[in-house]
């Protein structure tokens, strides 16, 4: 794991000094992070980097994963989709499975850290314990809550209201709540295997190993095989421009332990891609970070045609690699790029198709988009900024709610 000092050349001395300054105010404090999966998905990825860095700064950070069976994850997947705004059939017994699983976890988990930091809806109800423990509880919602299904939100809201504070990734996710809400964008780690610089030779070797031909420019979408990511829409967009461009479409992604739908979506995508030799579907294990890195770097254009999105960290990753990105204007994606300045925001299959053609035909313009995108990510979406916002949030818990906090 890279040490904090290794970030100095990327983010600058100022940024590191601020982190050291803030961390002095939290020396010895314990922070327990809880989420629902140790591997796969953006949350686990951020935690795997954030926790060691917090420890290096003298904050005693830990990370635990709640345990649940298939039934629990099937329910929380429905919750996830419903909170994203897709109607789901959720039965009373589903809610009961959720409550029972959280209660079983409550019996086994030690939640007496100074600050308990809960990520996403799956472990949200653990907050029941707060009244007894009298410590600080934060809820971090990583998903797009701008149009939540009212039934699921009404079920979760009483839990959320018991927290000291909640954290959202985009302004439009804010809710009317009696507790303070703060905006913290997620981030990527520029030194992780997924984002670090790679030598040309490394990229070539990885692509050869994965049997990805590079004789045509690659148009790539990296994401879980999930309907919300619209992989079939990506294929449709690509097939519309195929008569006019020489390119290959690559759909690549891992799966998360807490996503039972993944296999079914993958097989639908494979079925659709079967008839077209220029479409490659590449499921990868969730630990394939360096492989994803190489694929993104080898691509001419990156797509993220999601129908809903939390923040859209795959977009951040692609921008960091100076790639021209065509992405849907959903969730946190519009926060990451300015249309036609640092990336392309689209709303339809037609729009995505039009821009694939444009960017493949105008590599100079595509290059400029990539350069602007990288600089914006450097300023706003790297791990060190995220770490700073978390430290500020932790510090704010120890002060009366106010617009000014003098330290």
């Amino acid at each position, binding site marked *: 794991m890279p040490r904090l000092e290794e970030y100095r050349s990327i983010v600058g001395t*100022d*940024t590191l*000094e*601020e982190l050291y*300054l*803030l961390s002095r105010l939290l020396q010895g404090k314990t922070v327990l992070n809880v989420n629902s999966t140790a591997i796969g998905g953006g949350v686990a990825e951020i935690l795997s980097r954030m926790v060691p860095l917090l420890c290096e700064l003298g904050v005693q950070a830990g990370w635990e994963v709640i345990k649940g069976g298939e039934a629990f994850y099937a329910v929380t997947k429905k919750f996830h989709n419903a909170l994203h705004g897709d109607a789901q059939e959720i039965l009373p017994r589903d809610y009961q499975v959720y409550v029972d699983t959280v209660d079983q976890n409550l019996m086994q988990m030690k939640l007496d850290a100074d600050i308990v930091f809960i990520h996403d809806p799956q472990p949200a109800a653990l907050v029941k314990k707060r009244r007894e423990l009298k410590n600080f509880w934060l809820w971090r919602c990583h998903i797009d809550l*701008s149009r939540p299904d009212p039934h699921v939100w009404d079920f979760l809201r009483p839990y959320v209201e018991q927290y000291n504070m909640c954290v*959202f990734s985009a*302004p*439009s*996710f*804010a*809710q*009317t*709540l009696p507790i*303070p*809400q*703060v*905006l*913290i964008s997620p981030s990527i780690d520029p030194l992780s295997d997924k984002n670090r610089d790679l030598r040309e030779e490394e990229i070539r070797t990885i692509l050869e190993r994965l049997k990805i031909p590079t004789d045509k420019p690659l148009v790539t979408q990296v994401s879980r095989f999930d309907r919300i990511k619209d992989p079939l829409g990506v294929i449709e967009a690509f097939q519309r421009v195929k008569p006019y461009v020489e390119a290959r479409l690559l759909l690549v992604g891992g799966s998360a332990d807490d996503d039972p739908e993944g296999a079914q979506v993958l097989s639908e995508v494979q079925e659709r891609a079967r008839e077209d030799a220029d479409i490659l579907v590449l499921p990868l294990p969730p630990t394939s970070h360096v492989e994803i890195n190489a694929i993104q770097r080898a691509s001419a254009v990156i797509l993220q045609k999601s129908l809903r999105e939390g923040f859209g960290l795959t977009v951040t990753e692609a921008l960091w690699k100076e790639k021209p990105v065509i992405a849907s*204007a959903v969730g946190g994606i519009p926060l990451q790029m300015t249309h036609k300045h640092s990336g392309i925001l689209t709303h339809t299959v037609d729009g995505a198709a039009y821009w694939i053609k444009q960017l493949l035909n105008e590599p100079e313009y595509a290059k400029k988009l990539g350069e602007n995108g990288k*600089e*914006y990510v450097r*300023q*706003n979406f790297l791990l060190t900024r995220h770490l*700073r*916002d978390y430290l*500020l*949030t932790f*510090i*704010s818990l120890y002060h009366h709610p*106010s*617009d*000014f*906090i*003098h*330290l």
Partner: protein
Amino acid sequence: MITRASEPFRFFTRLSLTALTGIKAKNLKELLEHLKVVPDAVIYEHTHRFLQQHQHLVPEPPNDFSYWVTHMLQDEMLGERLAAIDTIRFNSLNDFRNAIVSAIENHLKKNSNLRQVPEGKEFHFMRAIRFSIPTQHHAYNLTEFLDCLKKVSISSLYLHVFEARLRPPLGINDFSHWFETELDEKTLAEKVAKLDPYTQTLEGLRSKIIGFIEGRLKDLSHATP
């Protein structure tokens, strides 16, 4: 000879978190109604946040209200008016707010057409939670000050140059105030005060102030017998 201050200049740094209010506007009338009553910290967030977030972009987007009116409501005339409100003229956030409010009110008097943005494009009101944090840097004279200025973070620069103007003594940045009251460096104080911090990047601003101080130190060294 270099003057030594009786009170050192202590560098603080300013960091902020963005709080969400859950309040949103989908047309100009709603924007105006909320603008009139939201706390100063909301005005601050939407008129100053960009300074820290878009450091590499010049020209900067002047404020979120102008951006939203231009790009989401697609009312370019009002957007331009809001962008042209000269931030540096106002010594309090409330005066600044009143200027924005009256620009919108005047526009509404002449334009009855009330456009509505599509779902997802609303203006979301946010509030800044500001933290002042002491740094280890302090200076008793110009040489020490120069040394510190080269080392402090841009957030520190931001606090002493931008925010200082919005608290007593109103309208003056902390550097100019200290140069004048502690070092009797009136000309240097005026030169720094004349810089318009809103139209350049923070690093550009730092370089200019460093240049002024180096120039002054050179003069002082020549004047020394």
